[in-house]
């Protein structure tokens, strides 16, 4: 049993490796086809740059600070979006008030109120704020959708057996909201990350991936640019993986099967 699991894991790693290799090949071919180092850096150069950077302390500091900023905004977005979704479902008047606000948040281009945010916030917190704005409406929509589809049959069970609100939340609402919230959390993680980094490019706080991207773009250091892009992508994948594991763990410890 144990051995077969190990073998399975090995197999999975090998497959992941193959996939990674496949995409790196695609990249290399792109490089050959384009034929300009300034446009597309070769995987090899990018690897070298990454390796060089990884040896330096500031590299990790930059990553750490960017991560911190964006994850902060993300978590706030998740929390506030969920709460807003619940309240808007419960109180119709709040829905009427919040819905246009969410549309505004979703639709208004950052460029429009960057001056405003610059006045009110430190450059450090703008990326957090933007990733917050990215995540919140997604969570809001999905929580509302999930609540709309909660099984009324089971709510009737709770009613006749006089369950407390708390019990209803634990046993009926949470398990049914879970997939919607999980989907929203997974989906918005990458977006928040991307939007956060994009804002860092504009607002450029000093220890930030966005700042590095900006500099390497201005000075046409394509290998550097691709290396930082790779960092962004790898981090995003790691975050997503981490989130998936976290979600799975939460789900399996609390309850087994959630439809």
């Amino acid at each position, binding site marked *: 049993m144990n051995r077969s699991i190990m073998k399975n894991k090995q197999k999975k790693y090998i497959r992941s490796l193959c996939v990674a290799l496949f995409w790196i090949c695609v990249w290399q071919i792109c490089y050959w086809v384009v034929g*300009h180092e*300034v*446009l597309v850096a070769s995987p090899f150069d990018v690897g070298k740059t990454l390796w060089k950077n990884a040896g330096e302390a500031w590299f990790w*500091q930059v990553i750490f*600070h960017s991560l911190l900023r964006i994850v902060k905004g993300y978590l706030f977005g998740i929390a506030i979006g969920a709460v807003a979704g619940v309240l808007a479902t419960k109180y119709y008047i709040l829905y009427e008030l919040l819905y246009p606000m969410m549309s505004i948040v979703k639709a208004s281009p950052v460029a429009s109120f*960057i*001056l405003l945010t*610059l*006045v009110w916030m*430190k*450059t*450090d917190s703008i990326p957090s704020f933007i990733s917050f704005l990215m995540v919140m409406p997604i969570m809001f929509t999905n929580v509302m959708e999930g609540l709309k589809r909660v099984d009324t049959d089971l709510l009737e069970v709770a009613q006749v057996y006089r369950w407390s609100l708390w019990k209803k939340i634990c046993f009926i609402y949470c398990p049914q909201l879970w997939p919607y919230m999980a989907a929203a959390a997974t989906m918005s993680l990458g977006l928040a990350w991307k939007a956060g980094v994009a804002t860092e490019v*504009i*607002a*450029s*706080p*000093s*220890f*930030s991936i966005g*700042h590095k991207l*900006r*500099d390497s*773009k*201005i*000075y*046409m*250091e394509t290998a550097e640019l691709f290396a930082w892009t790779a960092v962004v992508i790898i981090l995003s994948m790691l975050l997503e993986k981490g989130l998936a594991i976290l979600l799975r763990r939460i789900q399996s410890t609390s309850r087994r099967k959630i439809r």
Partner: protein
Amino acid sequence: GCQPSKVEDTAMENVGKAKVSMAVIKGPTGMGAAYLMEQNAQGLSKNDYTVTVAASPDEVAAKVINKEVDIAMLPTNLAAVLYQKTQGSIEVAAVNTLGVLYLLEKGDSIHSLADLSGKTVSMAGQGAVPQYVFQYLLDKNQVTDVTIQYMTEHAEVATALATGQADIVVLPEPNMSGVLMSDTSARVALDFNQLWAETVGEESSLPMGCVVVQKDFLENNKEAFELFLEEYENSVLFAKEEPEQTAQLIQKHEILPKAEIALKAFPNCNIVYMDGILMKETLEPFYELLWNANPKAVGETMPDESFYYEK
């Protein structure tokens, strides 16, 4: 210190010094202030400065509007716009950067504006200073058959040059250094600063960056501001005399990411210190040019007399 907008600490020996807050933009306009910032950091300056190194003009503009900073270094056209938008609550005290626009080519065919005739030039900055200046220079020199291909970003123009999609481009610092560092076949063909002098008059130059000050601040702290101007002029002089050392300071204070880049870009950035009548005479024709091209570029009306600071 990992604050994004770097606030230099001024720990010691500050008794009796006036507190002054100042904003500098990363890039050429900030380079002249490097030595001052260093002095300030060591407590050797005559005022107690709190310096913000901002990433974009937007950030500085926001701080000026909100009166968070007393002194700011800005692009000249933005200074004029802000003057109008704040109902004249700022003054311009000095020009600190002259033309940073250059015409680059691959090859060796352009030596004067007239050589551009019949060629295609790629550039960014449509509807902004680069377009207006370039157009003005072309018109004044009666070069009419230049095809201008506008691109969206300076970085795109640089890439186009590097990949051979464009042969002649107009680029500002610091993008130009980027090109020159990665592509040895590119050559600086024309210096807009020089062209300007040739076209407008020997004494004139093309002002791109300036120092502005809040009027409110001036009312109460005239001496402190005079001290600042003195110190700043020194700082600029230092930069011109000791480029290597300044380059290190520029890197240290995060005005540019690397000392080598700073050193390379240094001669092209035309850092100056110019105040009083000379400043006014430099700025006015420039604003007029912009105003003629598009009144919005200077905030709908030409700045009046009270815009110019007098000692």
